């Protein structure tokens, strides 16, 4: 079965080629069905492979000889295949959600949109399962290129093209930094496979400036994708303007794949004796993560453009993922995995519900929509449930993940609770304003992005669009299941133990050793974790209630921070360059 692993990339690619080749003669309904079918088949394949455990496939049949190969290896370990499965399921959901979504497909190219989404899927699945550094760069770029095109899809408007450009410049630059890092590693080790590079570094540990520079440069690209501060500026611009179904993919999995890339490279390449010392990596992830979480939460609270608000909440939760990785233990990584699964469901459901609002009212502006959602209670309920999932209300997967990820330090729960409460509270505030018509919508005089968007869909039908609501509901149910099924948490625990095992990964890939994952403590709810989840949900409710009553101080304190988010490509590039410097400083910080 292992040799079928490359098909998780090949099937969506073939589907995309079919849609483009026959697109001129294909009615829209056929094109959209083909898209759904290919995405669903890939999801099925990924799940079957996942059920069998770890799959290692040497593409082209170039199996290693004495630990060396000239080929590319794809490694579908539980985390990689799990992400491929998550991606494929979400892509299927998105294609169902966007059934006849756009008012008119590009003339003569009925299949263009599903084809782009399938190419996006291929890029993300390829990135998740590759075990080769250069191959990871190739699929990183495939994800990027499709992402830019999908973000700028609505070319009739001014904002999407600007957001897509910012996305394109910053991401491409990050990718090239990563490639420079890969070049440095190739010079030192003469290898490109992650397992091989890791082994070569360990064989003659030198821990010199070259290794540090390679680490910093490779991580730069992945952290740009993950939207970590100060590389995050592109994300709100792109998410605010991309078509809503695309936002579900960008926020739900693509950003998380950036975090995955950073963690994967850290554990497989740099975690050994020849890599970067664990305490330096810990400092890097911790500082960056906390900064990202706080900046994201502060900006999230200030937004009135609902998609931009959700985008900043993604930034802030990504920060928490990084904080969880900082500990580097199997338990905290399994927490991050569960958190990512739960977050994907919750965030995608929130974007999906926002899409319904946009479809019905032609706006995603909290102030303009004030009270206009009263007639769509169902969507309001979805919004509120999604908000509590973000805030970390047990038993959502987000809450279980946070509980496992935060327990390794005494002060970390404070950050987790605060950030969850603020991001969940912001969404609850929107829910109260839009769906209950509570209070009065505040107006600010600061530089900001208003939410008066053109509708993306056809003329709004009188009835609520059923498939859109059903998809949102299913996604939330998925987020709930992640925290409520003990078997899943057990599997994720085993996945995380294998993922954090530096030498074990190389043994699986290069020596074909397929032992069962080392046993470990089963990760499940603790009273403290559940209590902290309840606390942050209660705080979120309180914050939203205070905001609706206008009992909170105005957001003047945040003006300098908001001015930094200037929409200027040059500024974003400047921050990216500064970020490379920041990463180096954090890694090389002299320990007192």
């Amino acid at each position: 079965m292992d040799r079928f692993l490359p098909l998780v990339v090949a099937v969506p690619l073939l589907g995309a080629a079919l849609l483009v080749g026959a697109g001129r003669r294909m009615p829209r309904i056929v094109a959209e069905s083909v898209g759904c079918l290919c995405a669903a088949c890939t999801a099925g394949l990924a799940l079957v492979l996942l059920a069998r455990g770890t799959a290692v496939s040497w593409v082209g049949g170039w199996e290693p000889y004495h630990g060396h190969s000239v080929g590319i290896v794809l490694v579908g370990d539980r985390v990689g295949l799990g992400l491929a499965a998550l991606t494929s399921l979400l892509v299927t959901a998105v294609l169902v959600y966007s059934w006849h979504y756009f008012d008119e497909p590009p003339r003569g190219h009925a299949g263009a949109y599903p084809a782009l989404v399938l190419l996006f899927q291929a890029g993300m699945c390829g990135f998740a399962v590759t075990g080769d550094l250069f191959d990871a760069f190739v699929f990183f770029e495939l994800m990027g290129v499709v992402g830019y095109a999908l973000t700028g899809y609505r070319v009739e408007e001014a904002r999407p093209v600007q957001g897509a450009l910012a996305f394109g410049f910053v991401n491409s630059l990050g990718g090239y930094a990563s490639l420079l890092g890969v070049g440095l590693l190739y010079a030192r080790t003469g290898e490109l496979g992650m397992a091989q590079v890791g082994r070569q570094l360990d064989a003659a540990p030198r821990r010199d400036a070259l290794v540090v520079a390679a680490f910093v440069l490779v991580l730069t690209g992945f952290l740009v994708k993950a939207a970590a501060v100060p590389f995050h500026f592109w994300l709100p611009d792109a998410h605010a303007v991309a078509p809503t179904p695309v936002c579900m993919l960008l926020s739900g999995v693509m950003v998380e794949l950036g975090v995955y890339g950073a963690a994967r490279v850290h554990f497989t390449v740099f975690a050994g004796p020849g890599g970067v010392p664990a305490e330096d990596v810990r400092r890097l992830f911790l500082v960056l993560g906390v900064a990202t979480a706080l900046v994201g939460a502060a900006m999230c609270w200030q937004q009135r453009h609902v998609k931009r608000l959700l985008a900043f909440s993604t930034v802030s939760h990504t920060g928490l993922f990084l904080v969880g990785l900082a500990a580097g233990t199997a338990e905290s990584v399994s927490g991050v995995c569960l958190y990512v699964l739960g977050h994907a469901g919750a965030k995608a459901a929130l974007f999906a519900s926002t899409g319904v609002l946009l479809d019905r009212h032609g706006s995603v502006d909290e102030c303009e929509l004030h009270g206009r959602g009263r007639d769509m209670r169902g969507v309001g309920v979805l919004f509120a449930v999604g908000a509590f999932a973000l805030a970390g209300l047990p038993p959502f997967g987000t809450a279980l993940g946070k509980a496992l990820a935060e327990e390794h330090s005494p002060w970390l729960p404070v950050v987790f609770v605060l950030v969850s409460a603020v991001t969940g509270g912001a969404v609850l505030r929107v829910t109260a304003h839009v769906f209950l018509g509570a209070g009065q919508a505040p107006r600010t005089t600061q530089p900001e992005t208003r939410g008066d968007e053109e509708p993306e869909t056809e003329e709004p039908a009188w009835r609520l669009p059923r498939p859109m609501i059903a998809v949102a509901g299913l996604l939330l149910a998925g987020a709930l299941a992640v925290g409520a099924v003990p078997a899943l948490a057990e599997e994720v625990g085993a996945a995380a133990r294998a993922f954090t095992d530096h030498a074990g990964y190389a043994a699986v890939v290069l020596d074909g050793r397929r032992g069962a994952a080392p046993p470990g403590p089963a990760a499940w709810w603790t009273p403290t974790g559940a209590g902290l989840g309840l606390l942050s949900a209660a705080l979120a409710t309180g914050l939203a209630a205070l905001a609706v009553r206008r009992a909170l101080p105005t957001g003047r304190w945040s003006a300098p921070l908001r001015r930094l988010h200037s929409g200027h490509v040059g500024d974003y590039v400047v921050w990216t360059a500064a970020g490379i410097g920041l990463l180096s400083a954090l890694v090389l910080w002299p320990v007192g």
Partner: protein
Amino acid sequence: MSVFPYAVAGWIFLVGVYGLATSRNLVHAVGCLSVAQSATYVLLLAVGYRRGGTAPVFSDTPTTASVVDPVVQALALTDVVVGATVTALLLALVVQTAKRHGTTDPDELHELKG
């Protein structure tokens, strides 16, 4: 002088980033991004160089000849294609930016703030 070719790669990257950060025209900025990318070609090819090595093509040299590393050349080829396609896509976005915003100066794009 054995560091010189690597230093050239680093210099090209920095120059590209500088141009990108200070650009007043998006077409120029796309060009700067390509410059920054060129650093990766130079670095890869420099890493793969072998003194006295010839091109790794054996159609008119004996297979025993000393050749430079073919792997980095293949990587550079992939990289070139990636760069060209990203450039094309970004230029398409610039064309639409010029139409929708009436300018290609990043200083005058004011739609996304805060």
